[in-house]
């Protein structure tokens, strides 16, 4: 068995373990390199969000360009549940996940027979609907003032009750959820389910004619992706102790696309994680020099799409191995084209 298939049948790969161990040490050194623990929380949350998003973009070939809606729905659900129903961390997170699943399923029911550019447009349209609702439903969401005073609820394990008000404690809590999601998603993409999603990305028609219910796969993966994005949104609301409609807007929805593509989500499981880290580091590091950091990051994004659609992860893979057949670069271009081409 070669290395790839050995890794794909593992629950936890060596790279994953190394990465999680490295993250465990992060609070010890992040201050010393001129950054701050809260950035670590943000990176993990956005990485979780981007990983969920990449289930659609990279694995299933489904361009969802209004995905911020589900992230935002999770944030509001987390806040509203603790304000109005019960302030329990676990239940609030479940509420975020559940709200995302339901919203995702509703949208997926309307779009799962589509693909390509039509799919992309419809996800944008539905994303905008949720965003407008978040702004206009002032009495529920607080409108543009946001939903404030969201508490960082303590994690109650029965035998211990851990306070998460401190950034370091919250970092470890988010890391635990991130690690679980990472392991779960790795197994998912290598399972029969993940295999069929990738088959659908490559050739929907062929997949249907060998007996796979393409619609149902597209429906479930969209719902799942929305649910996990909402879970990330719930963590985000907890981290910033508030929820705002801006994360649901089209341009925030664009951020997760940028992260995923720059990191190399089209060709690698790790792409979204790399991309989320790069994005937020660029925001802080370039942002310290100029408020126009997005200009530079945007140019970088354009360069990636034009010349290196395989992203950082694909570039790295290319350095390590000269694979037989198509180069990572050509693979990246082919997948990028297929995303919006909507090939039959």
């Amino acid at each position, binding site marked *: 068995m070669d290395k790839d298939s050995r890794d794909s049948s593992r629950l936890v790969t060596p790279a994953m373990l190394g990465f999680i161990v490295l993250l465990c040490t992060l609070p010890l050194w992040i201050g010393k390199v001129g950054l701050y623990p809260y950035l670590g929380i943000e990176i993990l949350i956005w990485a979780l969000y981007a990983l969920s998003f990449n289930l659609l973009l990279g694995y299933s070939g489904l361009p969802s360009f209004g995905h911020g809606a589900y992230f935002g729905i999770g944030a509001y659900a987390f806040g509203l549940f603790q304000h109005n129903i019960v302030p329990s961390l676990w239940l609030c997170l479940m509420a975020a996940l559940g709200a995302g699943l339901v919203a995702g399923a509703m949208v997926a029911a309307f779009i799962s027979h589509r693909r390509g550019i039509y799919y992309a447009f419809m996800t944008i349209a539905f994303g905008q609907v949720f965003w407008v609702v978040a702004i206009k439903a002032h009495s529920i969401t607080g409108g543009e003032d946001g939903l404030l005073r969201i508490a960082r609820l303590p994690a109650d394990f029965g035998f211990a009750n851990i306070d998460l008000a401190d950034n370091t404690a919250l970092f470890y809590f988010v890391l635990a959820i991130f690690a679980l999601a990472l392991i779960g998603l790795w197994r998912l993409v290598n*399972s029969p389910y993940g295999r069929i999603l990738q*088959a659908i990305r490559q050739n929907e028609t*062929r997949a249907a*004619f060998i007996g796979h219910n393409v619609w149902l796969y597209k429906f479930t993966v969209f719902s799942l992706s929305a649910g996990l994005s909402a879970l990330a949104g719930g963590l985000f609301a907890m981290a910033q102790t508030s929820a705002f409609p801006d994360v649901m807007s089209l341009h925030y929805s664009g951020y997760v696309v940028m992260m995923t593509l720059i990191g190399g989500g089209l060709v690698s499981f790790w792409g979204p994680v790399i991309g989320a880290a790069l994005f937020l580091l660029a925001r802080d590091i370039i942002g310290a020099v100029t408020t126009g950091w997005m200009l530079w990051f945007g140019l970088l994004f354009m360069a990636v799409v034009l010349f290196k659609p395989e992203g950082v992860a694909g570039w790295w893979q290319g350095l390590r191995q000269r694979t037989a057949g198509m180069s990572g670069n050509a693979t990246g271009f082919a997948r990028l084209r297929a995303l919006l081409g909507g090939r039959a």
Partner: protein
Amino acid sequence: MSALFEADRLQMRFGNRIVLEDITLRFGPGELCGIMGPNGAGKTTCFNVLTGRYRPSRGQVRLDGEDITGLRPHEIARKGVSRSFQIMNLFNDFTARDNIVTALPGLRRRGFDVSHAVAANSAFADQAEVLLERVGLAGKGGVLARSLSYGDRRALEIGVALAAAPRILFLDEPTSGLGSDGTARLAALIGSLKGQLTIVIIEHDMRFLFSLADRISVIHWGQVLAQGTPQMLRDNEWVRNSNLGKLQ
């Protein structure tokens, strides 16, 4: 003889355009049937109706006596109807082995299973190996589908269609784009499958079809103009007068 697969008076219209006028076809168990006809005769449309891509405007499709008209492609596929396509249809990012594994009924039944990795399932790999050997791709399981030679890709398409464990296999121009060596190889492959399952082939290469088929149907203007054994068609006046009949 009781037919395994029957198409009864199919009509297919797209708007004002009638592509299939009135098609009745029967395929018996273990039979190898050919479908021929000029370009635009409606052969591929006929396949698309038989395998569920289009719902016919009129008429009925039956598998083993069961009405399957209007079922969706994956539902028809699950009942044991498999097909290949005129234009190459493979999972190009997968290896040859993974192309086959993706089509295995075992994998399909566990499609919503997320607790196991596909790579850890040696039964899938073993079944794939058997199928690869059957279509002449032994030892090429690890090659990406896009990196295979054209002839190997054509063979892999048949492998994928067979992996779904069909009772009836529809092949839409399996030799298109192949040279004479490739065609001979494919003829040998299809010949080796003959009798094991029902096979229906659309083909332009008449030599290929006449040497393999038990029965041939000629479709033109959306109708079945003639059908019978290769010998009967050689003697058929219409076929002889058309350029389809210029065989030897």
